[in-house]
């Protein structure tokens, strides 16, 4: 069973946002979805999450139709826009998420402590979210997405707005976590330096998959995008 299967998905608002997108991800894979702003990454994530209704095509998540409770139960999401309650403490935010996923109080407490320890936030657990830095908030969101032990982790621009060291630390942490727990990850980004040699990289441009391979070297990616945009302009 594939972890994620996207077949011929198209979606339009006033103009097309996705056009015939197809790819699948095998369990345990760490895949980058690389695309410039406006490429359609967030629309694709919203369709996978069931936040938007499918207009055309099919999406199966862990063998279930996208958006169904059975599919959502196995997924962890980190959205591009921060989705934390600023007026709650870190531990209260995580406890809320644990409750939404039906974890018992004792399980939730154990896992919250564990995740905050892993992400270096144990000392801040009783602080209000609004007092955290941007990088710390992002780490809380990733810890939250991992809390219910998802089999598929979907991260949409999870490092947006952070400085380079913070970005690197977060990417490494998620890679390590996925490897440790055997989780599958789809990491959407517009930052080519988040691609590492050997990563499977799917390039999304203007709503279409333009490339899908493992040997896109990080160093050549800015050129790759420049060429892609130039060829669009010429066309």
């Amino acid at each position: 069973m594939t972890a994620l299967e996207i077949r011929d998905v198209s979606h339009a608002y006033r103009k097309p946002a996705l056009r015939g997108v197809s790819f699948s991800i095998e369990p345990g894979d760490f895949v980058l979805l690389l695309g410039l702003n406006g490429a359609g990454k967030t629309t694709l994530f919203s369709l996978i999450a069931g936040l938007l209704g499918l207009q055309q095509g099919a999406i199966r998540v862990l063998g279930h139709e996208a958006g169904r409770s059975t599919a959502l139960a196995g997924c962890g999401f980190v959205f591009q826009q921060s989705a934390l309650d600023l007026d709650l403490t870190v531990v209260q935010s995580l406890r809320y998420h644990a409750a939404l996923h039906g974890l018992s109080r004792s399980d939730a407490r154990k896992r919250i402590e564990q995740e905050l320890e892993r992400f270096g936030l144990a000392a801040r657990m009783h602080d209000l979210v609004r007092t955290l830095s941007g990088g710390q908030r992002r780490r809380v969101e990733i810890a939250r997405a991992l809390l219910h032990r998802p089999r598929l982790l979907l991260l949409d621009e999870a490092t947006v707005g952070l400085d380079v060291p913070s970005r690197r630390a977060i990417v490494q942490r998620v890679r390590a976590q996925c490897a440790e727990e055997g989780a599958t990850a789809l990491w959407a980004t517009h930052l080519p330096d988040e691609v590492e040699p050997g990563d499977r990289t799917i390039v999304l441009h203007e709503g279409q998959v333009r490339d899908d391979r493992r040997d896109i070297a990080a160093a050549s990616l800015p050129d790759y995008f420049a060429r892609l945009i130039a060829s669009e302009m010429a066309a």
Partner: protein
Amino acid sequence: MTAPSRYSRALRCFIGIVEREFLRFLRQRSRFFASLVRPLVWLVIFGTGLRTMVDTGVAYEEYIVPGLVGLVLLFNGMQIALSMVFDREMGSMKVLLVSPLPRWYLLTCRLMAGVIVALPQVYAFLACAWLWGVRPPLNGYLYALPAVILAGLMLGALGLLLSSLVEQLENFAGVMNFVIFPVFFASTALYPLSRLSEANAVLAEVARLNPFSHAVELVRFALYGRIDSTALVATVVMTVVAMALAVWRYDSGRILRRSLAAS
């Protein structure tokens, strides 16, 4: 360790949503005082001023207390709507909507959490009214509880529906004023229907059809240990209809589609 049953997961989710609403409410203490000051101004100032001018068959303050309970619930319904629009704009709505339970259930939990938060506000107001001399029978406070919950659910469901129609947070203050004042004044909260029909038949008809009037009458009768069956049926039907429409709007992805299209 055995996997929790569907019911225990649903219950934990409900408790989690209620806990979050309470925590947010506790952090916004001014909200509690504002919700008390508003009806108290009506009771103490307007109630005293209009006591001799409006013939309601009972002391005017006594007449308007159920209407003012309705006012607390009406503002609470708008608060539910505001909080939904705020969560949508801030992104935290997505966390709720991607949790593995049916959307109708999640929205119902959210609605019930909002109503539970309103209960201390209503009873704090009733305690103040008691100190001011409005003293329904003691068991009336108990009988009023289901009526207050039902009225709160109806006004909260209307708030949820409203939140699905409002596109941006900035527009919400205007919408609130546009909804709250006509709904409150064109009702039986401040004057009985018989007095209204003597003055203006059209306005009386509007007040008779106004769902808020039914919520107020439901609470009024319950406070004195009676059931107004028309008000009860109207409130239940309105709650179900508003909730069904709100779930349909949220479930169809219309709301998020709009915000994504805009970005």
